[in-house]
């Protein structure tokens, strides 16, 4: 077995996702402690220069499995290719993003390899040559430290937790083509339904603006969207707003929705039920606007405004817009 860390890269429309660089940065830190190197693997079809950034961010080598059957992600095809590569190269740790793709792929791959998998990890530590992983459980109401007992160690990595290293564009990619036979694929993607308009993904966003029951109706999400637009933020919603049918479930932040870790989380008209707090409490800064001064959201907020959100939010939006224009 080697002491190398293998990062499973992920692309969206031929662009590497930010999580790839976050994993390379953290993967390198772990590999350094174990005396190995960080490497990446890309699966796809007609892949070219778009994978060069993997080397810029620190991957010593990039394995490339290029085949028409790998153009679109499938759990079965990707598992077949990766299981073969992992048996061949014997990395000590395999990282995938805790994205909808990585979370779909990693359990299948781990079961194929009959090894353990730590999901949605937020910390890694090497102690006496062993890997200890921290990950939130109960949607972040508690933090568990996990020891993996089998190798290769496997983990999915939560986006927005680890800082991407500074890229060095002078580093040339060392690409190695690897067998790309996807084998038999039973479950296949037959269509992609894209959301109308450009939507910023909640779990990857640097700023999130969320609305809750205090908005009083679906039409008032326009206020949230206007503020989000000024900030380049993703839009979220509380369970109350989702259950009322004001927003689709894919917008829900909380224990039965998405867990987000942005730099700034703005909660508008959200009281802060325990199941909502579980989904946003690890944000760097939290701002809350609520007319009830006893709302639990204020207990976790760095900046709180007790007042009518219909009066506060438009002024906040205008002021931030002005600041942005001033630069």
């Amino acid at each position, binding site marked *: 077995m080697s002491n190398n860390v293998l990062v499973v890269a992920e692309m969206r429309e031929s662009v590497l996702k930010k999580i790839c660089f976050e994993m390379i940065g953290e993967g390198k830190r772990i590999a350094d402690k174990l005396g190995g190197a960080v490497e990446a693997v890309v699966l796809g079809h007609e892949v070219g220069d778009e994978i060069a950034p993997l080397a810029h961010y620190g991957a010593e080598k990039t394995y490339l499995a290029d085949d028409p059957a790998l153009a679109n992600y499938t*759990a079965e095809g990707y598992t077949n290719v990766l299981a073969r590569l992992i048996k061949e190269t014997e990395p000590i740790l395999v990282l995938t993003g805790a994205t909808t793709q990585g979370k779909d792929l990693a359990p*299948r791959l781990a079961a*194929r390899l009959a090894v353990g998998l730590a999901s949605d990890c937020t910390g890694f530590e090497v102690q006496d040559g062993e890997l200890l992983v921290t990950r939130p*459980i*109960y949607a972040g109401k508690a933090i568990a430290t996990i020891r993996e007992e089998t190798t290769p160690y496997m983990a999915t990595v939560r986006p927005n937790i680890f800082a991407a290293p500074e890229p060095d564009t002078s580093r040339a990619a060392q690409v190695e083509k690897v067998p790309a036979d996807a084998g038999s694929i039973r479950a296949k993607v037959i269509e992609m339904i894209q959301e109308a308009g450009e939507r910023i993904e909640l779990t990857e966003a640097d700023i999130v603006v969320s609305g809750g029951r205090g908005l009083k109706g679906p039409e008032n999400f326009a206020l949230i969207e206007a503020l989000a637009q000024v900030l380049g933020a993703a839009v979220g919603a509380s369970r109350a707003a989702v259950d009322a049918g004001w927003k689709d479930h894919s917008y829900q932040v909380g224990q*039965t929705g998405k867990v987000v870790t942005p730099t700034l989380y703005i909660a508008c008209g959200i009281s802060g039920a325990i199941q909502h707090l579980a989904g946003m*409490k690890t944000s760097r800064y939290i701002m809350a606007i609520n007319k009830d001064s006893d709302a639990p959201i204020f207990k976790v907020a760095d900046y709180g405004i007790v007042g009518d959100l219909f009066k506060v939010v438009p002024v*906040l939006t205008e002021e931030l817009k002005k600041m942005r224009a001033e630069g």
Partner: protein
Amino acid sequence: MNIVICVKQVPDTETKIKVKDGQVDHTETKYVVNPYDEYAIEEGLRIKERLGEGKISLITMGPQRAKDALKSGLAVGADEAIHLVDEAFEGSDPYATALILCKALEKMDYDIIFCGKQGVDEDHAQVGIALAELLDVPHVSVVTRLEIAEDEKSAVAHREVESGHEVVDTPLPAVITAQKGLNEPRYASIKGIMAVKKKVIPEWNADDVGVDRDKVGLETAKIKFVEVALPTERTAGKVFDEDPAQDAIKVAHLLRDEAKIL
């Protein structure tokens, strides 16, 4: 059509998690059916109703108290339930849990298997997908819409991804993991709740399931919990409650100067 639904009993999401001696303290925990499993159960019921025939079997692995989760599913209309219970199962990690379910399913008839997309306790989100791999059937995870083909040999599932939905065509049998949005689960009727009292829920131990006791449980777990701790609590920051417009301007400046978000 034989529909199998894997369910798990978990602490209610309203539960405040307490930690004692590096482990979650469950002495005051109230247990419920895992919320995502409720969508799985509801989808099974709807398929049976649509087809006008079928058998819905619930299966859970867990201690004696987990039987209540099976009873909840029977109360809304599942036909039978099987409880996988053995001291040797305790402390099983996601892989071992999937292995136990796999061995049990090999003794059952199944055309489609449902799981919740994750348990809202340890949040691994692995068992359903690992189960599919061990059974050597395809899976579609995080499903928000499902249509069974007329010949009942395949299904089309909508799966939630970052930028929208993937539409996946899969032959059956397959494992489907349910996401919120798949349907609106029904409540049990009084009649349904009463009917459960007459149902016998068989218990299968490791021998019945046909799984090697040495390969499951805490001892041989591939991932082990070393310690559980509570996250550091946040403290309340600056609160403004004078004039909405003035307060908004003050906070906008703090966001720029302190949080440096612009």
